[in-house]
């Protein structure tokens, strides 16, 4: 499944990295603690967070994430946006609360990969 499928289904607003929406999403990771995300997320993950400062771009870039979703109406800081555009990191924003975003992304990824692992 690529990023564009998720963007369309969840009606996310893409604010940077539009050129990389074809990237394949391999999994997801949720967290606001950057050291946790650095240690435990994986390449190709879609990172869901409410951190908006520019260091999220460095983390996503270092970990080769597919992109970042900012939840609950959070908007990236101006320097975050500049950096993400420069480095081609897709940032998507939504008004949905985290719980809903995570559940929907999880379901999309799980059903594409086979039966829902929670059942």
């Amino acid at each position, binding site marked *: 499944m690529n990023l564009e499928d998720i963007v369309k289904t969840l009606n996310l607003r893409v604010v940077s990295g539009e050129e990389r929406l074809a990237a394949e999403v391999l999994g997801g990771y949720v967290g606001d603690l*950057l050291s946790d995300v650095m240690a435990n997320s994986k390449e190709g993950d879609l990172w869901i967070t409410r951190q908006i400062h520019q260091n999220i771009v460095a983390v996503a870039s270092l970990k080769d994430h597919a992109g970042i979703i900012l939840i609950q109406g959070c908007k990236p800081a101006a320097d975050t946006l500049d950096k993400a555009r420069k480095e081609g990191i897709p940032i998507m924003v939504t008004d949905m609360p985290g719980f809903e975003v995570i559940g929907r992304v999880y379901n999309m990824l799980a059903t594409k990969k086979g039966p829902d692992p929670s059942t």
Partner: protein
Amino acid sequence: MFSHEPAIYENSFPVEGGTYENAGHVSSQIKALLKRMKISKEVVRRAALVTYESEINICSYARSGKIVLRVTPEHVMIEAIDEGQGIVDIELAMQEGYSTATDRIREMGFGAGMGLCNIKNFSDFFRITSEIGKGTHLKMVIRIDKDFDGI
């Protein structure tokens, strides 16, 4: 340790203390450099992680610092050397969850007391020394395993 091995690459990168504006800049550079050397993805990612955490520590706690990268055919060695307040109790600082971070640092999602643990866990060799009022010196070594590319 490992310093007797002939280096195929060696460089030093300055890190500014007291600001996060350029945090991650050195890690990105080092990641790109190692990638160009055709070092396995797993090793590159571990090197990027330990460098990033070191950079964040310098940004958070030191006046200034530098990251020294030394690559030999067998190892990637990264040193983070700063001029700053130093660490009073290293054993305590190494405990997961322990942090002296300010509220401002924590609000940004840093200061969860995970940085030094991450550095230790993602290195094959790790040493930390510190002098109060002078600064802290981290040394990390990651073995280049040519047969393994786990991630």
